[in-house]
């Protein structure tokens, strides 16, 4: 009996480094050799796609790159595929960020990857850079764009940008998309753009924020949302641009499986230990 207990104890107190190595391996293998597990399209992603598909050509779309480099692996794929879809549909995106380095990420990791034949900066898209001041700054941007971003990311005065001639406030946006890893996040966008100016909102969420977001989707305040890398993968499939997200989801799957197995082992060890100790007492 004691031997058994010893084993369970050992399992329960396994060195964490073993778990860590296991994780590195289980994530690395599918990256080297992806299997390509099929992805089901969820309803919320579908509603995002449908909404963007129905927007008339030339509509102005606000895209909030509300992330830093740390959130990029999860939000970047979503932003990239949204932007690609926007360019494909000939919509006109305005990039902004309430995060110090969001606009930079857009310029470095998103724009160069886009397939956008014939599109010209300033005419077909603009990057207005960083909005300081959190929700207050967003409120100011919504009521008057030039009050808070007099110059764009490249320090060109906004009046000189052709696309911005008729765009003065959030009332001119046909859609707002936000991908956020904290504040400002979807709630700030809901309060400042949606309720105040009636701009429909699409959220590219971190999976962790989805439980807090679903009530707003169910109440139709949010048009649709995609959740994390999974959402990006679904969207890549929908728009026929399979890329990074689709390829990386296998690694996510294997990680989830390994963690689930770990949880089961941990719990079994706990139950078994309790069982053996009980027997000893009686």
């Amino acid at each position: 009996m004691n031997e058994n207990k010893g084993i369970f104890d050992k399992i329960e107190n396994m060195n964490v480094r073993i778990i860590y190595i296991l994780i590195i391996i289980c994530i690395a293998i599918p990256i080297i050799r992806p299997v390509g597990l099929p992805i089901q399209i969820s309803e919320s992603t579908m509603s995002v796609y449908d909404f963007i598909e129905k927007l008339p050509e030339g509509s102005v779309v606000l895209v909030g790159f509300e992330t830093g480099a740390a959130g990029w692996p999860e939000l970047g794929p979503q932003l990239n595929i949204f932007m690609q879809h926007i360019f494909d549909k000939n919509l006109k995106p305005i990039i902004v960020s309430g995060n110090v380095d969001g606009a930079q990420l857009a310029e470095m990791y998103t724009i160069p990857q886009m397939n956008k034949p014939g599109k010209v900066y300033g005419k077909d898209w603009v990057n207005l850079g960083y909005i300081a001041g959190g929700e207050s700054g967003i409120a100011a941007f919504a009521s008057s764009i030039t009050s808070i971003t007099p110059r764009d990311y490249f320090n060109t005065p906004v009046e000189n940008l052709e696309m911005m001639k008729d765009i003065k406030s959030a009332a001119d946006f046909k859609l707002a998309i936000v991908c956020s890893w904290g504040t400002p996040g979807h709630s700030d966008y809901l309060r400042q753009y949606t309720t105040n100016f009636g701009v429909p909102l699409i959220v590219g969420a971190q999976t962790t924020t989805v439980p807090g977001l679903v009530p707003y989707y169910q109440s139709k305040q949010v048009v649709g949302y995609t959740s994390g890398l999974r959402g990006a993968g679904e969207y890549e499939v929908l728009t026929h641009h399979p890329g990074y997200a689709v390829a990386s989801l296998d690694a996510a799957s294997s990680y989830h499986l390994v963690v689930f197995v770990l949880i089961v082992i941990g719990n079994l060890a706990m139950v078994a230990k309790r069982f053996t100790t009980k027997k000893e007492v009686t």
Partner: protein
Amino acid sequence: MAEAILIPGKTVSLIVFLVIMVSIYLTMRNASKGKVPTIRTLPAYNAITEAVGRAVELGKPAHYTTGTHSFVGQTAGGSAALTAGLSLLAYISDICLSKGATLIASCPYPEVMTIESEILRSSYLKAGMEEEYSEVEHLRYVPIVSSCAPFAAGVAGWLEREKPATNFLLGPFFFESLIIAEAGYHAGCFQVAGTTSAGYSAFFVACCDYVLIGEELYAAAALATNDPIQAGSLRGSDVNRAWIIALILIGVVVTLLGMKPALMSLLSI
């Protein structure tokens, strides 16, 4: 003279805003005049004394942290939770001193550290043990600038080395919540935790013995400080919760009777 025009579609929202603000203001005023509402029993709050007792029994220190929030550049909610956490620090420190346990606090920002140091010092002063307080011994300063990871790693490492008897995690938390709570669990600490965010409460429920969920943290702070204003504000929230519940029930019944469109248009003025 410019004319003030109510923006169309905002009538109901203005009424709701005023109802909530006025009711909270009234309950706060009532409370400050002496009609302090009683706050319900919170098992986690009562567990604080038990937790300190355990530290005395084992002759080991108790550890306390509010997480990696500061007052600058945070949301109002984060600041409020931090204030609640700091009120509880004062309360816990008083109990520790009266029972003879050592309390050690960890914090990541200089401005929060100054406040925590003041709280601990005045607690020692109240107990008449001013000489025994030393900022170096009772406050661990783990500096960070943006990411919570260094703080979490620092505190987790300390917990595993020192194995304190009790671990308090009360305040607004980010992701450090999981790392610290898990390290505490593994070090065998009796853990009392509380935070206002749903996402991070989940970690606490899994790893800690007692948890203050959401507004329970504010309630615990109100109990700890005996501040009538805070208790009054909680009462105000409850009053509004009551009409919200009633309105939901009415809405469901109206929907059942097939008159939902009428109610919806009434609520959308």
